[in-house]
Each structure stands twice: as structure tokens, then as C-alpha cells.
């Protein structure tokens, strides 16, 4: 895997490590706030879809 990684990314010059602080803030907000909301919304839509599946369409 390391060799494969080197083939794809490393030969491109000018890349440098990103500031970890902003990335950690992003990942933290995703994990603690955004993903729980997404999971809730997806579950709500799934439950709603179980009701709509019975709708009659005939016009």
C-alpha cells in the first residue's frame, strides 16, 4: 500500500502537509454534529418511504 501511495501522490511536487487544526475541527464537527443529523434524517426518510410505498398511482 505504501508503494502504491507513493506512486499516486508523492511524485507531485509542491504538496505539503495540511494544517491539522482545521482538519481536526472539520472531522470533529462531522463526527459530533453533522453525521448524527445525517443518520437521523436518512432514518426518517426511510420510515416515511415505507408509508409512501403504498400510495396508489393511476391517473
Amino acid at each position: 500500500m505504501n508503494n502504491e501511495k507513493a506512486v499516486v501522490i508523492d511524485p507531485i511536487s509542491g504538496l505539503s502537509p495540511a494544517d491539522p487544526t482545521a482538519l481536526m475541527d472539520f472531522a470533529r464537527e462531522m463526527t459530533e454534529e453533522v453525521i448524527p443529523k445525517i443518520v437521523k434524517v436518512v432514518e426518517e426518510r426511510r420510515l416515511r418511504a415505507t408509508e409512501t410505498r403504498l400510495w396508489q398511482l393511476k391517473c
Partner: protein
Amino acid sequence: MYTWIPLTTAADLTKLKDFVTPEYKPEQVADKLINGISNAVKGLLIEHGYVDKDYRSTYYNFYSKKGQKYNADCVRLHFFDETVDFDKTYLRLSCKDKELHDHYFGYMVLRPTGIATIGRSVLTPDVRSGATGSIIAAYHYVHLLGYTLRVQGFPSMDQHVDISVCAHVACWSILRHYSVDQSNYREHLVHDITLMAQQFNPGGLVPSRGLELSHAERVFQQAGTFPMNIARRDGDVTDPSFYRQLIAYVESGFPLFAAMHKRKHAIAVIGCAWRAPIDEVGAGMRYAWDEVKSLVVVDDNYLPYLSISRQGGSPYAIEDIDDFIVALPEKIYYPADAVDGLAPTLFRLGTVVGLPPQDETIIRYFISTGSAFRRFVRERESEFDTKLFEVIMALPYAQYVWVVEISTGAQWASGQIAARAVLDATASLRDPVPLWLFHSRARALIFDRRTVGSDVTKSVSVLELTGMEQTALTCMTQNLRPTQSK
């Protein structure tokens, strides 16, 4: 047998009844055409005795078993512009530039069924009165008198009434488009669709009693797609994330099977028209959906490319759509609901990437393939720093990606963007950083996703971009064809 009718105006279509027998209801068809197509249509060629595979599928399985004697053949109408002439002796179509398909507007099959006689049709939206915006379309090839003609459009037909209903037709339209547009989907005839909806052959007139939404889902599943049923929140007519997803899938090139519960009606949503750009300083962050003026739909009660407004329009409005099914290919695991939740969070990386103020931006997201994204960038090499270009070509995307574009109001008006994020469409719902790439004109973040469980802070690289400050950075519009009214 072929009959040519030159048209001075669309009203001349009333002559249709002189050449087509009553079982095809030529007067009703002419009325629909007179009110529905533009005066750019100047020539009509009637192809008698046409064998239509979709009608034949219903003829063999239904009409031929009835007491009344139905004709096995159809009539096909072909529409041309003013440059095309017809030689009756040699049955020759001609035009000055010899590029017949540039002067061909499409065809319409008429079924000998006495009611709802408009069968399989593919017309260009350019001659449809009132058609606006951009639509999902594919090239359909037509064999006529030894010529191979070409028309870009979306399939449509009237429902049979006695064997199929609106939901069957919406499924048929979408699947016929898939079969023409993508080689990995086969063609399904009308009667196939009525059978695919059920676990067993219900026989006789049962299909005309209607479908449940779950049956439409089953049709798409049987056709080899992976249908996703997205329902609007109960009692929430606005439900913005529902409509944001709807427009995202349409912009991704997926026609939608849309249901209207109160009307018990189904249509195919195939395009949209944007409102005129407006300067809404202080209005807060907006989404592409907020900029939509109308949707373009295929409804089996009307000629194709009906435009419906957001609220209160006739015969119905976008707000009447409360559920849709998108027939997705495999390998799109990250749902639009997740992209909708994630997109505003990208501004947490604003200081790193360099983004405009969040409350001055418009967010647009859609699905693309990695190869289509690379092709888009390839065609615009000059817009990109060469290092970023190299990164985009080198990243090992899965087949499908979600693209999130961020633009200011002014950029939106000119088809430009400030930043673009490329998300992994195969990501898990719980993936905290489902990104491949996030770049503006100043900086790019490159995410190495290939090691599962890697520390995000150590698997991200930054690239300073040069030469992109003043260049165009074009928004990616690949899947919809603009209507050019004639």
C-alpha cells in the same frame, strides 16, 4: 406507404385526418400538435403501416385477444423544418446541406387503439411550445426510407388507459432513456413494464387499476437499477432538503419517477429552468434549488417537456410532488441527504482553502463519474494550475463521485465557481471525511482515502495554486441539454 404534408403553420396539421384513419384519432392528435408544437415544423411525413415494437408488445398480449379487431400496425409521423423537401416518385427526402438529421425534429407513433393513440414518441424540445430550460436527453436514431436520422430528446407516450397507467408510462420513459443512453441497460417494452411491476402476471386489465409506488420501485429494480425512494417529510410542503436532492439528481442526469399523492399521478422529471440571476445580498447561503424557476416533466396526459412552476401552476406545481424514485446505478452509497448535510460544513475548511463568506454563496451538488470529471477538466486545461491538473488526473476515484460547487451570486450568474469539492460516492454514511479533493482558486486540499482508518490529519496534503486568481473556473454542467426554441 408515405404521405408528405407541407405545413405553412401548425394549423395545417388538421389535414392529418385526410390521410389517417379514425382508429388513430387523427383529429385529436392534430389538436394536441397544433397547441403543442411551434411553427418551425414545416414538413410532416406520414409513414403508414409502421411496426412499432412497443405497441406490438401490447397487441400480442392484450389487444389481439379482444373481441374487437385491432390493427397490428401503427402510423408514424416525422417532423421536419422548412429546408426539407420530399420527392414522391423516388420517396426521397432532400435538403440543401444534405445533413437531414439537422433538419429533423423527431417522430410520433400513432396506435390504432381508438383512445389515447399517441404512442412512442421522441421529439426535440426545440419545437415544443413553452418548453424552457435544460433537459436530460439522448440521441435516438431513426431508420426511415433508407436514411438514418437522429433526434436528441426524451421518450414519451400517452398511457394506454386500458392496459397501462401513468406510472407504467413514467417507468417506461425513464427505462427507454436509460437503454438508449447507456449500453449496460436493455430495452423494456410497454408490456414488459406491466409484468415487471408484479410478482406474477396479473393478467387482463389488472394493470390498468393502477400501481402502488412500491411497484414502480420494483420495475426499476427488475431493470437492473438500484432505485432509491425519497419521500418528502409528512406535512412539510417546503421540505427544502427534499427538493435540493431532487434537483441534484436531475442535474446528475438521472430522470426521476415523481409521485403526486393527492393527484394519484406519476410523471418523469427530466430537466429544469433557472430563474434570472438576482443579487440577494444578505439573503444568506443558498442552494441550487433556490435558483430553480421551473421543472421540465414528461406527463402522459400532455406532449413532452411540460414546464411546471414552483407553486400554484397549471396543471400542477412542483409543490405537488411529494415523493420521487431515482434509479441509480450500483456503487452510489453516499446518499444525497448526506451531501446536503456535509456541504455547509465545508466552510469549516474555508480558512485553509480560501472561500468567500458563507452567507454570500450558492451551493450546488450533483453526481458525476470520475472519468466525466477528468474529461471536464481536460477540456478546460487552461483553468487549472498544472499541479492541480496533475492531482485531478492522478487521484484514484471510485467510479462515481459527488461534486459540490460553491459560488458567489455574481459567479453563479456568469457560470463560474469559487471552489469545488469532490466527494467519494462510495463513502460510508458515517465517514467523517468522505473527500477526495477540495480546491478554490488559491489552494487545494488533497485527501488520500485509500488507507481505511488513517488519521485524517496525516493523510491530507495542501497545494498552493498559482495563476488561477484571474482565470475562469467554470461550473460543471455536463448532463443537461439546453432547449433552443425554434
